[in-house]
């Protein structure tokens, strides 16, 4: 399924709105001005193939949520290891060499992932008046290839590059929304309805 430029723009717009909401929550939580933006959206036909701007071999940290309802699929937020460590240090002021850092990292990233993904999914649900169920976040660390192919189900993947800009520090993550094909068509339909 090929998306038109307009369709991609529409998706990016919706995702950015969600990111804005998530940024608001993060802001109020940590008391630092933080901006979230999604400058680029790719549509992949296979989750195993990384988008061109992602380094496939690196170690990553990942927060994943399953969702169901009108739309079914799962969503994950990926951070390259270094970005993940920097983000955790920034948010918790926990030093990377401290023995608690690993635990802090898992729970912090889980929460950040939850906030961002909930923000985006919440926005999507509100806009389309299509409530859906969201599961609890799962945190994982490991190899990119392993973590990005959790199951063999075919589907479409929206890969949204997510930039965190905190105190002049640029951190990059990647938000992935995997939809079952039918769900994705429903989204496109909803988007079209919305813009008409």
């Amino acid at each position: 399924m090929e998306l038109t430029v307009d369709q991609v723009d529409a998706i990016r717009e919706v995702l950015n709105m969600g990111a804005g909401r998530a940024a608001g929550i993060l802001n109020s939580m940590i008391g630092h001005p933080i901006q979230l933006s999604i400058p680029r959206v790719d549509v992949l036909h296979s989750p195993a193939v990384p988008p061109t701007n992602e380094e496939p071999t690196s170690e990553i940290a990942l927060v994943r949520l399953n969702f169901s309802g009108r739309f079914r699929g799962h969503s994950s937020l990926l951070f390259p290891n270094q970005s993940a460590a920097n983000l955790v240090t920034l948010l918790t002021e926990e030093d990377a060499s401290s023995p608690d850092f690993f635990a802090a990292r898992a729970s912090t990233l889980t929460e950040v992932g939850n906030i961002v993904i909930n923000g985006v999914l919440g926005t999507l649900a509100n806009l389309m008046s299509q409530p859906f169920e969201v599961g609890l976040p799962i945190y994982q660390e490991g190899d990119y290839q392993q973590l990005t192919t959790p199951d063999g189900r075919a589907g479409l993947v929206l890969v949204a590059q997510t930039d965190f800009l905190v105190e002049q520090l640029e951190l990059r993550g990647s938000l992935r929304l995997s939809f079952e094909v039918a769900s994705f068509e429903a989204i496109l339909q909803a988007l079209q309805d919305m813009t008409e």
Partner: protein
Amino acid sequence: MSSNLTPGLEILDGVPVGVLVIRDDFEIIHWNRCLEEWTQRSRDEILGSDLLELYPRVASKRFRERLRSVFESGLPEVFSSYLHGHLIPITLPGGELQVQHTIVSAFAQRDSRRRHALIAIQDHTEIQRRLTRYKEMRDQALEENRQRREVEAQLAREMARLEMILRAIPEGLLFSSIDRRIQMANPAFTALTGYTIEEALGQPTRLIYATEEDFEKSGRTRFHRSAKEDLRPYEIELRRKDGSAFPSELVGTPVHGPDGKPIGYLKVFRDITERKEIEQARILAIQEAEAAVNAKSQFVATMSHEIRTPINGVMGMLSLLLDTQLSPEQREYVRISHSSAELLLTLLNQILDFSRLEATGLDLEEIEFELDGVVAEACEILSGLAGQKGLVLQEDIDPRCERMALGDPGRLRQILVNLLGNAIKFTPSGKIELIVRPIDRDGHQHRVRFEVRDTGIGIPPERIPELFQAFTQVDSSTSRRFGGTGLGLAISHQLVTAMEGQIGVESTPDEGSTFWFEVDLPAGLDSETAIEVPAGCRVIVLGQDGSHHERLERWLSDWEIPFDHFEEWSEVARSGGDDQRLVILFSHECAPEDGVCQAELLRQAVNPDLTLLAMTSVNEDAHHCQETDAESIFPIRRARLKEQLTELLSKASTLASEARPSDDRSEVRVLVAEDNVVNLKVVSGFLGKLGCEIVVAQNGLEALDLFRRGSFDIVLMDCMMPEMDGLEATRQIRAFEKSKGRRATPIVALTAKAMPGDREACSVVGMNDYLTKPVRKDELSQMIHRWVPGRTGRADHDPDRPSGTSRTPV
């Protein structure tokens, strides 16, 4: 508020998770048992309270916003105590705050418009602890992994380097397992054997051996030899893939594992075809060279024999001629002919000697000899020549020198003769001194320095370096003026070098030269025996104090001869002792005429039994003494003096007990085996003069036959004869004597061959002594005297006495 608002929530009491339920106005409508335990606050106390009042922190913006979003969107939220802090602080027994993971989910009661939120607080303290532990383990594993990878990388680099080295080694290299299969090989292995590494791997090492036997032999020894031996390369023939063999040098060493057990065997080998060829060529070249040297040596030996024989004849005949009635003019001619022949012989000897040195190198003897004897002989040989030129020849041996030395007396004498001859040749007038003294006894043990000082023409300094080279004389014109081959110094140089000594010269033109050499002469065994002085005999040494006397007295002490020393003849007379036989040694310092005169006076005045022994360093004086009644000794030699004293004293003893020996004592019977007519005439002539009875054999067989039938006092045996040579004849004579139980008759070899080894050959077959041709009368006389003592002597002084009976068929 009552719990009935939330029917069914009691079920949450059973879970190990803190659970509370709030309404959207933050009123707490459920507080489960787990929370009661954690917070120590009972449900009844809590229910209906406002969460914000109970825990004012929740009112903070960060909590409130998110809780609100839960109520608004219905999406679950996660609160980590790391990021958010604690919604409800719970203190652990240790005082720490519990690590919490809080999940807030919104739900709506069916019968109420109000939204509710269920807040589940999980205790993550243990999870965190486990995570931390897991992380530590993971980090450790990662670190180990990293280290392992580093080690592997290092190993890989080492392997690569090893591979490179193996490639670079030009020798074939082979590692085989215990069961002798090839495990590893290098490219040079391929180059040498023709087998690719792939072909070789796994194959038995038999592959490269030329024969099954070599393979088995190598297998037997490979783990039995000690490590040291293993590194010794050995040569072995190996075989290439195409079947051709090549010689190789192989070194093998067992390889042991860390536990010390052998794990295989490493072989390194190279192709030595080229080296073998060179070696072969060298061996061939050496063989050829040796053959050439042998031929040359053979030639020299032959020449030596061929040349000496006629000269022997010439000189012998001239000696005999001199003893016949001649006019003064004829006598002078003969004398000149004789000395010319002698000079010719000297020259030939030098040339032959040098050739021989060149051809065969030097075989130095190491035997015991008397140092002063050798010095004396050298001086004696040249005293005639010195006397002719009116030169004084003096010798001075330092008393500190060892009397008996160990070395090669013949060669030492040769050097001295060369140096003295040289000095005489180049000294028109004055004197020549031979000085012998030990030097530097501590550093170089037994180093002896010989100096020959002359008052000759000297040598310009710039010519000195060339002196010791062959065929060099200072000026070719000098050789015309002074004669000689110029080989003497070169031969001396070679001899001294062979003795590991040094030779040199210091010289001032027109003043003289000092030729010197230094050699090591270890002390020999001094087996000096005492001389018995018969009762009634008295030994008197007469003369002024001086070096001669010092020496003489020391010798006499050595021989344990008691003696008196007087300075004047008159003192002897005064000392009395009428009844004694007097043996008087007097030196040349008293004029000989005077001495003889005085002795005569003494004899008349005191004692008719007087034996006189005159010691002189001038030959003419000695002759003069001999014409009188005195025995003489010239030059004064320890050995000769001892010999003469022994004889004199024994004679004195005889005189003391018996009458003088009668002259009719039987003559010495000599068997002469000699095939050369000229030599035979010479020897027979001399023997006749010595008063011997001569029986002649012309070959070994005849000699043996005559010996069996007759009885002889001594046999003179030529070595080279037809039919049976002298050596074989001697062997058979000795066998004959043994079979008959007779004592051994002295046999003296007569030979022109003077090559090293001849003397040994003669002594092996049982000969007693050795005379080199041309035979001189005095040498022959000494020889007879030595082996047939007390039977000749007087005859020598009686020229009118008829010659000995000769059965010579010539």
